[in-house]
């Protein structure tokens, strides 16, 4: 068979697998969703408020904090995995928590990746809002929570971008969750790590099937959020 035929054959078998309703594949998909969605949600739940506060308040070392968060956005996932592994390992400082090789450890590792992304983009979105907007709000003497509502509403585009970026990073991440999750069958095996395993074992049809699912999820979420972005884009008529 030519190289191309092999790929097509693998693709066909993959579709068969997908429609067969395989339990293992379903379990892998649900775990991936659970880990990455949770990590993104938590990253946003902390990242947006903290990012907002850092952007709005003036304090000693504000630029240091902002720079640090921006730098952390570029954290290589594999390094995060290594550090979390060392901490959660039975012989590490947090070993007593017995979190290693659990989905919770995977969520923790991915949160460390999603938080700076959401926080950093939130900070820059808020900071790049027009100063006149801020003057207007100050002049209207709106209380802080009302100010926050307006500012967050105005920076909606940026915040949605932040969440898209964070989820994208989480769902496609493989190194960190491999290290702290251990890719254990039926327990910590996610789409990305399963694809790696099956590819290594030469079972390409299964790997492709999982790859199709991963693409659908990644594109699906991105498409939806991009649709929201477009809706909140300003339409000037004059």
């Amino acid at each position: 068979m030519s190289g191309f035929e092999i790929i097509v054959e693998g693709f066909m078998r993959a579709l068969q697998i997908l429609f067969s309703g395989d339990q293992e594949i379903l379990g892998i998909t649900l775990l991936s969703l659970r880990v990455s969605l949770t990590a993104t949600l938590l990253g946003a739940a902390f990242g947006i408020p903290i990012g907002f506060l850092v952007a709005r308040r003036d304090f000693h070392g504000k630029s240091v904090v902002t720079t640090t968060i921006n730098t952390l956005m570029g954290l290589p996932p594999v390094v995060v995995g290594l550090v979390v592994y060392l901490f959660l390992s039975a012989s590490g400082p947090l070993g007593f928590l017995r979190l290693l090789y659990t989905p919770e450890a995977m969520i923790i590792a991915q949160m460390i990746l999603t938080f700076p992304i959401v926080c950093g983009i939130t900070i820059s979105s808020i900071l790049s809002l027009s100063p006149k907007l801020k003057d207007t709000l100050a002049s209207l003497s709106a209380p802080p929570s009302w100010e926050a509502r307006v500012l967050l509403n105005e920076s909606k585009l940026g915040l949605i971008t932040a969440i898209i970026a964070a989820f994208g990073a989480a769902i496609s991440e493989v190194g960190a969750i491999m290290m702290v999750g251990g890719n254990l069958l039926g327990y910590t095996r996610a789409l990305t790590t399963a694809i790696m395993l099956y590819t290594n074992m030469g079972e390409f049809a299964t790997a492709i099937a999982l790859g199709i699912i991963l693409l659908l999820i990644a594109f699906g979420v991105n498409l939806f959020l991009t649709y929201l972005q477009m809706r909140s884009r300003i339409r000037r008529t004059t």
Partner: protein
Amino acid sequence: MSSTNKILVIFVVAVVVVVASLTVVYTYNPAPQRLIIATTTSTVDTGLLDYLKPYFDNKFNANMTWLYLGTGQALQVASRGDADILLVHDRVRECAFIASGNGTLRVTAMYNDFIIVGPASDPANARGTNATAAMINIAQAGASGTATFVSRGDNSGTNALEIRLWTKAGISTNGTWYVSTGSGMAPTIRVANEKGGYTISDRGTFYKLQSTMNTTLSLVILCENDTSLLNPYGILLLNSTKYPNIKSDLATSFLLFMISEQGQSLIGNFTVNGKQLFYPIYGNPESIGLPSENATVTYLNSLLKSRGLE
């Protein structure tokens, strides 16, 4: 609230609901006892552990899982207390592990063998039953640019055996003909396949790849059945005093399962492509030239008896 905001809110709520329900399902699922085996790639890639799992899980109401590592990595992970038991194949390092006090007991449970594989055209003339001769030929061909050797280079048991063979043949592996992948057995074979090079593999993984890769695997077995290619597997119990958090009881159950009559016959019955890969050898390591383990075997036999697991 604008309609965009409404959609956003509904989306976020939906996500929260999904996450919460998945979390609840996973947390409250009465998970049977989870056993983490630190093992090498060959037991996983061949499908042996997948085969054994349902028997073990049912018998002990457990959830057998394994970390896909090389022998070196597995020993490292176990020494950190991150696994419950070891199943590896490097007797020298296994004994060192016991001597260090990290492990309290080791026993030889089964063996498989290694083969030297390479391109059918065999430019280095490695074909035969003498592993040392084959390695020398490959090195010479490599030096003259007609062959490549692909090594795992990952501190695994396979890698250790490969290095022992080079040492025995008196060959230095410095040279562009010697390539190191740093990966498991299956990926290393695939790299050798791509390059049309030679490599050493355990028979099991090679057979498995033959069945999954079909005609895309162009390598063939060139050298086999040399005694220096025999590969015994040891199961090691970890020191439960040093690692109080491991499931030592379940680990012991696993070891007993593997050496029990049922386990040993399962190991022998496991086939890939109709060919047997692993040979049960509990209690009889002398038959492949290994030192006797009588004291350990006696102890374990009485343990088997007391737990009704013969």
